[in-house]
């Protein structure tokens, strides 16, 4: 439903920079949940399916997936300038805050109220990531793979990382080619 909404696009590199600064500054405990909310639902620069696609590319490449995502979104609209505007937005303001926090950390980290607040924020941040996973899963009902294969691949990958604690590179090398081969077999020959 939301994915059918009219698409918007950023007006300028400045707007890209400001939008990514704003979303990075809201991203406590990781930027993924905020990025999905802002890019798909508020700004409507991406559909959920496109968001997941760009994230998949950002995931298999080295580098943080959300930074790769910001590069690709910026590049799509304004080329290299846009890519760096978006990436700079993602990093500049949070870096200044992190450096300031580093200076204060030693004094306050042991304080029980601060430690408790950080623990509570951590629990919520985990929930935001899980909720985002649920939201992004819904468009996969229409995947050419079909729901049973999507579910089987998803469960296998989750089990490998969360329970067996296998290294990410091993999981991607093992399950990635299998998933792509299955998708190749299920993808229609001619271009859409």
């Amino acid at each position: 439903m939301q994915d059918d909404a009219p698409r918007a696009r950023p007006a300028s590199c400045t707007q890209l920079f400001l939008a990514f600064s704003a979303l990075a500054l809201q991203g406590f405990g990781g930027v993924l949940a905020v990025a999905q909310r802002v890019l798909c639902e508020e700004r409507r620069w991406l559909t959920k399916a496109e968001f997941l696609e760009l994230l998949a590319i950002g995931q298999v490449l080295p580098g943080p997936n959300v930074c790769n995502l910001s590069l690709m979104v910026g590049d799509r609209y304004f080329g290299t300038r846009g890519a760096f505007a978006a990436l700079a937005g993602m990093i500049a303001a949070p870096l200044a805050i992190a450096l300031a926090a580093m200076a204060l950390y030693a004094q306050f980290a042991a304080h029980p109220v601060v430690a408790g607040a950080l623990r509570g924020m951590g629990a919520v941040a985990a929930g935001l990531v899980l909720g985002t996973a649920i939201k992004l899963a819904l468009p996969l009902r229409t995947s050419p793979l079909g729901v049973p294969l999507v579910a089987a691949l998803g469960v296998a990958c989750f089990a490998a990382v969360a329970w067996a604690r296998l290294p990410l590179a091993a999981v991607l090398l093992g399950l990635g080619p299998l998933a792509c081969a299955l998708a190749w077999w299920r993808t229609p020959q001619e271009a859409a």
Partner: protein
Amino acid sequence: MTLDLLLALGGHFLLLSLLAIGGAIAVAPDMHRWLVTDARLLSDPQFASAIAIAQAAPGPNLLFVPLLGYQVAGLAGAAVALAGIMIPSTTLALLAARWGAARSDWRSVRAFKTGMAPITLALIAATGWLLAAPAGHWASLALTLAAALAVWRTRWHLLWLIGAGALLGALGWV
């Protein structure tokens, strides 16, 4: 001496950049081996505090890398570490994304996107699971589930959710 240190720091992170599949945190053990065990530039608590601050502060978790550089060599160290970890992976990501976008109708490119979607999704879910797991007791798991439900079913601003978590934690309830 300082220049040598900066060059060593930048060089190390340049090398690690292309190995950082899944983000800079994936190569944190290698950074630890060099900075703490071998070169003795940082202590264990210093290393851990950089990761803790990057987790707690807003923004990508990658920011623990410039924080490590900052502790080694001040602001210049932060700049060198950030540039080192970012430049190779950024260049590759940009080239790969353009290559893929120009060939979006190729069957192989579509198969890649279709196949990797469930894998990527499961990795997101596993990240959430691993972030939730260390807390362990029921109150914080309940808070995690409530936050998941809220982000899925409501349009509440995410900062309110984070703020509620901070408040509950500060009161000692989770």
